[in-house]
Each structure stands twice: as structure tokens, then as C-alpha cells.
């Protein structure tokens, strides 16, 4: 059975709230019922049928043929199935997802993977600020799953993260891993200022020494631990990277000593 396909007729003028268009929520609905769902957020809100041509029936495999920076909440809260976006997405893609997989071919707005607890979110372009991070008023960030950004991520990637893996392949902005409680954030490429600010535990894994680090991170020299090899192997076997990120005997900083100080920054060292 062909996957449920939403073909974008024209760039939407308003921001769209696509929370309702997930495999879980569309399961068992007819095309006519789906077309009537309201997704616009302006005073004259559009429905699904106004903006998309709908084809296919299998709601466990959803395809957005065409994307937009106005597509908010793609795959939010989903627990199974697959969502594919052939283009850009807006804010909060994959927010609170618990399972299944989302692939976004283009760029993504802020809070992608916000508070996700399971599943896999892959963004092939750049992502905005607060990757995996909580919204205002929420105490906990990403709690599980795998989040891959093949482009660059903005500031505060992995904010308040407590479990799971984030991999960013073309560098990230400032405050990566801020307020982390646990989990792993791997970054290939240039890392902005103050990574790990306020982190209690968890691992930040870089392919180079961070340039602007808080002095509340202590240089621990080179480490000879099994974890770096294990994690490098995982990244390669999962298809996230094609070469090791950390290599053997990476350098290590411990911190943030302003808080608990049990976090670590591991980074590749030459020689």
C-alpha cells in the first residue's frame, strides 16, 4: 500500500501546526476527514485540503512532498511509523516523539527534537537553536532517541538533555550541551563558545579542542578509555559518520565545576 502523501500546492502564507499529521493520529482516518483537519494558525486558518493534495492510504508512512519553514510540529508526539519531508521544516519538528523515524531533507527551525524520548530524527540540512531542548517553562530536555543533524546546529544544542544521542556533522553554535544532565552530544566541525555551561553530567564529544571554554572546565589530559572507541564504532556502524570522531586516546576536560562537575568533554587530539 502506498504511503500517505501530502503534496504541497503552494507556499503557505501562515504558520502551520502539523501536530495532527502523524502516523498515530491519522491511523484509521479517511482522506476526506484528513482534508478537513485545520492546520493554519492565522485568523483565516487553512485546512489540510486547502494546502495539500492527498494521495495514498498507508498512514504509517507519511510523505510531505515539498516542505516549508512554516511547517511547525512535524511528527510531534509520534510513537511509530515514518515521516519524510522532501524540503524544509519549521519549529519543533519531532518534539516529544517517542518512537518511529523522521527524515527532513532540508533545514529545520528551532527546538527540533525538543524533549524527544525515543525514535530517530534525521535532519539533512541545518537546524535552528535549542536542538532537543525544552520549551519555556519545561524542566527537562531530550530524554532518549537519536537525533542527527547533517548540517550545522544553532546555539544551545542539547540544552537540558538527560538521555539519548545527538550527532551534529557541520559544527554548532554557542552553549552546546548547556545544563546537560546526561546523554551524549557528538559534534564534527567548529563548536561555538561555552560548550557545557552548567552541565552536571553527560558527554560532549568533539573532533577538535573547543576554543572558548569556561574556566570551570578542568584539563584532564589524554584519556585511554574504551568508551571513545566504542562510541566511534557506533557512529560508523549507524551510518552517522564514515570516520572515527574521537580516535584513540582523546583529550578530556571535566566540568562544569560550577555545578556538579561530573560532565566531560572528550575531543580528538593529534599524534
Amino acid at each position, binding site marked *: 500500500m502506498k504511503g500517505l502523501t501530502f503534496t504541497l500546492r503552494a507556499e503557505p502564507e501562515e504558520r502551520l501546526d502539523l501536530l495532527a499529521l502523524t502516523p498515530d493520529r491519522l491511523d484509521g482516518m479517511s482522506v476526506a476527514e484528513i482534508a478537513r483537519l485545520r492546520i493554519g494558525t492565522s*485568523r483565516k486558518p487553512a485546512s489540510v485540503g486547502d494546502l495539500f493534495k492527498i494521495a495514498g492510504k498507508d498512514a504509517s508512512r507519511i510523505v510531505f512532498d515539498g516542505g516549508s519553514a512554516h511547517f511547525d510540529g512535524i511528527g510531534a508526539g509520534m510513537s511509530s511509523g515514518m515521516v519524510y519531508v522532501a524540503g524544509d521544516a519549521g519549529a519543533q519538528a519531532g518534539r516529544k516523539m517517542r518512537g518511529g523515524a523522521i527524515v527532513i531533507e532540508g533545514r529545520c527551525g528551532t527546538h527540533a527534537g525538543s524533549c524527544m524520548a525515543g525514535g530517530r530524527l534525521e535532519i539533512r540540512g541545518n537546524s535552528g537553536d535549542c536542538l532537543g531542548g525544552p520549551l519555556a517553562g519545561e524542566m527537562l530536555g531530550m530524554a532518549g532517541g537519536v537525533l542527527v543533524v547533517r548540517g550545522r546546529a544553532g546555539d544551545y544544542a542539547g540544552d537540558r538533555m538527560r538521555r539519548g544521542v545527538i550527532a551534529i556533522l557541520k559544527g554548532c553554535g554557542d552553549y552546546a550541551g548547556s545544563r546537560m544532565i546526561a546523554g551524549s552530544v557528538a559534534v564534527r566541525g567548529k563548536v561555538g563558545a561555552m560548550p557545557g555551561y552548567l552541565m552536571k553530567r553527560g558527554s560532549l564529544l568533539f573532533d577538535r579542542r573547543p576554543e572558548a571554554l569556561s*574556566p570551570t572546565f578542568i584539563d584532564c589530559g589524554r584519556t585511554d578509555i574504551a568508551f571513545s572507541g566504542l562510541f566511534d564504532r557506533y557512529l560508523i556502524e549507524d551510518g552517522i559518520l564514515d570516520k572515527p570522531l574521537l580516535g584513540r586516546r582523546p583529550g578530556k576536560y571535566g566540568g562544569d565545576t560550577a555545578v556538579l562537575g561530573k560532565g566531560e568533554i572528550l575531543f580528538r587530539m593529534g599524534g
Partner: protein
Amino acid sequence: MSVAWVGSQAVFLSDAIQHAAKLLASSRCPVISFDADVHGTRSVIALAEKLGAAYDHIRGRELLNEVALFTSHGGMFTTPGEVRRRADLIILVGDLPASHHELILSWASAQPDLAGKQSRRWFHLEGGEAVSGGKDAEGELSRQVKAVILSAEAASLGTAVALLRAELAGRRTATPITNLDSLKKALAEADFPVFVFSGNTEEPTSLAMLQGLVADLNRSKRASSLFLPSDDAAWGAVLTSVWMTGFPPRTGFPNGAPVYDPERWDIQRMLRDKEADLHLWISPGDEIPAKQGRIPLVALAHTASPVAGAAVTISIAAPGIDHDCVAYSSRTGTFRATRASAPSDRPAIAGIVRQLAQALPSGEAESC
């Protein structure tokens, strides 16, 4: 004197209101930027709710980090009165807006009458990079209160706060901080230390770090912090918005209920990205709104002439100058009544906005 214009043509106030109401009613996504006293803010939010519009303070970008301290981190806060009467140790944190220097100096000239020791010690934690207000004014404040300077080489304020927190917890750091032993001794002797800070737009996470430091101290003794907003009037609008909707500005009513989202309802971004199709600007300040592209502008401004590019301009009174008002005061930590300094007949923001809301066609004005 004219108080209303459609384009550049002077018209009766009622005609301008009708014209503006028609534009609002026909718009798909109206947005409101405002700067008003309590009554004005309440009327703006009521209008936004009726329209299904989004609203933000005109200083929304600066408010964002101050608001985030409360929405994302939380903290321990005290009032200016408690600081004046009980704080026997005051630690100024970073650059404080010049508008608050007089308040701080008033504490220096009086002793804490409810503190055990009836004397007060001062420290100033400095960041390495100057932000608004300037280092000179800040240095002068430190000298006048005879504050002991706490600083670290080439450390930004966020770094300095982190260093101080780590050092006070007895954990290792890579850089020393000056006069730390003096502060440790003063903290050990103090009954009620208070950290005085303002919103730091350069490094918002430093505010979270500072609150963590205060929480650490509270494990063994009483300590608190005093938040001095960068703009009292703007902070008053934040508090008014919170009591009306439960949320600060950058709130919208997409489905009739308020939704707070500081990225989604960033009015300047919405105008830049052409998500909004009508901009209602309400401010009695000197700043003149700029029309963004082809998006129609309705301007309620303290002006004697039409705003360039605005579809409708209505002249409004400045609260506290043209009429009495209620505004937030950091000196008391709450709202206070302010007498008009130069009373005039210009219409108040609240009155104009209420007339606008009443002029909306009832069917179209309902939010979706």
C-alpha cells in the same frame, strides 16, 4: 490640533478609528507592538484576544532574557525594601542600568536597621566586556559604594559568575578570581547576603548560573537576589501580561486561547518573514515605527504629525506626562500611581484601543 490621520490626511478621530478597525478586521494575521502603562497594556491584550492577534513589547528582544530567567530557570528573589533594611552584604553583579544607580546609592547612605550588625559590606562582580551603561558609570558606582571588586582575567560576566560559584563550592577552576578570600569571609559573617543583578542580554545563561549560586548558599544560610529590570515600564507590561493571560509578551491567540512562544510571536521576525499582514504599533515614546515592506502600518504614537508610511496615525498621550498612570517601580518592587507632569487633552492609549475594539465588526473580530 489634529490627532488623527488617514495616510497624510487629517481626519476626525472617529473616522481614523473606523478605518483602522476595518484594516484590523480584514487582516489575516495582525500583530501588535506596544509600550504602554498598565491600563494601556490591559486594553492592548484584550484587543489582541478579540482579534486573535499576537502581541509583543517594543523592547521584546531585551525583555526576552529577563523573562527567560523566570520561565526557564526560576530563582530566589527578594524586594528592594528587604535589601535596604536587612541586607548586610550586597554583591552587585555585572553592569546595572544607570536608572537604578540612584536606588543603589540610597542603600549605601543608610544602614540596614533590621540587620544584626547595622552595617553593610559591598562587593562588585565584574564581567570583562562592557555592555550598555558603560564601564565608567559602573566603576563610579563601585567607588561610591566602596565595593570590593571581584573579577577574573579576560572573563565575561557569565564566566565570572561560573568561577565564583565553583570557588564558593570549593571546586577547582582554571582561573583565579580576585578578592575571593574577602568575599568568603564576608559571606561567613553576613546574616543576609543579597546579589543585585539586571538582565544580561549578552549572556542570558549567566542569570541561571547566578541563581544556582544563590541556591547553593541557601544550603547553609539565608541568601537571596534582587532583580532590577533593564526598563521599569517594560517590566510593568510583562507583569500585566502575566496576570491577564498567564504569559509574558510574545503571546498570541491562534485558537482563542493564549499561547506563549518567544520565537513564533517575535513580531519583528513575523514582519520580516511576511507572516504578519498588518502591524499595529502603539507607543508613546520617541521611537517612530518603520513601515516594513508592503505590510500596512497603523501607528498610535505620541506625535503631532502623521507617521510616514502609516495607513492610519492616531496621536496618543504619554502616560505619566499627559495623564496620570499606574506603572512599575523598581524602587518599591511593585506598581505605583504616577501623577501627570504636563497634563494634556491627548487621548490615552487605553481609550483609543478600547474604541478600536468596539469598532471591530463583531462577526469578523472573533478569534478563530
